[in-house]
């Protein structure tokens, strides 16, 4: 069971975690919008936003190493996309600006996802009149994400314990079979879940 990377710190106890979810979502949106819409002449504001985000991170008692590692893990996507900006005249300033902005947005969203439980966010979506089918899909997805990730890891462990030398030529074939097995098990599980839901009075 090594899937605690999913939303590990969203159930901590801290002043930030106790705030209502609406407030946190609104704050995260405000941070992202401010940073995204910021003209490059207002670099001071970027500093202000980053200072407040760091204060929130300190108040929320999420370990620093986790935050840094999570942001660094997501950084390749940002760097890859920002790299395209390097190919035009005067691109390096744009590159630095883009990377700084994106890192701040990432930090804001990582803080949101680790201070708010997903079910609270789903409740917000429901209150915002998002179609019920989408909310049901999202909540079922969140509920069974952990189960399926766990199942994937069990299949991986089973495969590793049976293959002594990984054959590179057949690696893709084996992986694809694992994915197909995962789908078959998923659809069987969906049938069982439907039967169980009906048995409990789901209409």
């Amino acid at each position, binding site marked *: 069971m090594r899937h605690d990377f*999913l*939303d590990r710190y969203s159930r901590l106890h801290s002043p930030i975690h106790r705030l209502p979810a609406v407030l946190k979502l609104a704050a*995260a*949106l405000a941070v*992202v919008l401010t*940073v*995204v*819409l910021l*003209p*490059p002449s207002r670099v001071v504001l970027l500093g202000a936003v980053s200072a407040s985000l760091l204060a929130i991170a300190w108040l929320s008692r999420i370990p620093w190493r986790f935050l840094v590692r999570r942001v660094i893990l997501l950084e390749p*996507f*940002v760097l890859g*996309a920002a790299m*395209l900006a390097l*190919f*035009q*005249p005067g691109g390096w300033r*744009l590159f630095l*600006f*883009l990377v700084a*902005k*994106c890192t701040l*947005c*990432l930090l804001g*969203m*990582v803080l*949101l996802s680790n201070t708010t439980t*997903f079910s609270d*966010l789903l409740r917000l979506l429901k209150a915002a009149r998002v*179609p019920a*089918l*989408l909310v*049901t*899909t*999202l909540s*079922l*997805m*969140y509920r*069974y*994400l952990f*189960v*399926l*990730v766990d*199942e994937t890891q069990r299949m991986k462990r089973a495969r590793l314990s049976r293959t002594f030398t990984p054959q*590179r030529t057949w*690696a*893709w074939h084996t*992986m*694809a*079979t694992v*994915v*197909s097995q995962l*789908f*078959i098990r*998923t*659809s069987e*599980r*969906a*049938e069982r879940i*439907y039967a169980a839901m009906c048995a409990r009075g789901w209409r």
Partner: protein
Amino acid sequence: MHIPDGFLDSKTAVATGLLAATGLGVALRQARLHLPPRRVPLLGLAAAFVFAAQMINFPVAGGTSGHLVGGVLAAVLLGPSAAAIVMSAVLIVQCLMFADGGISALGANIFNMGVVGTVGGWAIYYGVSRTVKGLFGCVLAATFAAWCSTVMAAIACAGELATSRTVGWWVALPAMAGIHMLIGLGEGLVTALVLAAIARARPELLQPDAATGPVRSCGVVVVYGVLIALGLALFASPFASSWPDGLDKTAEVLGFKQKAVGPIVPVPVRDYRIAGIHWSVLGTSIAGAAGTLVVFALAWSLARVLVPGAKADNETSPRQAP
């Protein structure tokens, strides 16, 4: 291909948000009308499956690895509208829980991967598998559609980045399309292998009527078609012509141009054109067409390998008698 926050300007973010909301709305309505209640839990489970499958790494040369995106796989297994919902759910969870893909770019990501990549990919799958029947046709069509969907989503993504003036057209398009033409080969191969493995183990799960049955209402096809065409016209038209870009034009016509927040960073894109642009367009188009033909041939031979005895199967229609 997840666009992070900060790469799209406000007009692009709003336009893609509207396109994505319409596409997702049509898919949800379609599912509410036609999806049997038995399959409602499968939507959530399939979204979790796509998420878990994306975590399985396929080794590529040099210690790097890639993973499945799964839009076309989901569309083949569940049908286009359900697949659009599934992929949107995956993108929403990735954005809210993992900060993978920005929240201001959520609309763009859903439009690229959930609508263009999934529904557009399914349309190609539908077309090809109607002409080439049987399991062989199914694998061939899915492989080709998976490649096309990756490239189409990449082109839409490049168009959005260029429309936001973040990156110039002549940088964004070749880089994104070129890289994703390679990545798409992997996506096609994995999709084919997974479908062939499912067909071996549980052939009844490859639901022919969910994915390739007769399209029930023309309205949905029209709406999806108009959405994708609109997206391409807005974001990909500057590539094909030197007209003022579609969104600017629309903004001018609708009169909200003054209110729109200007480009975040003034990039000299408007006047940044390579000499001999017409040749470039022609050359790129020819290269793209040739690449597509090569991929189709590759998909054909892959399907031949994965579905042996395809000729004999063609006559007996393996879907009815697996």
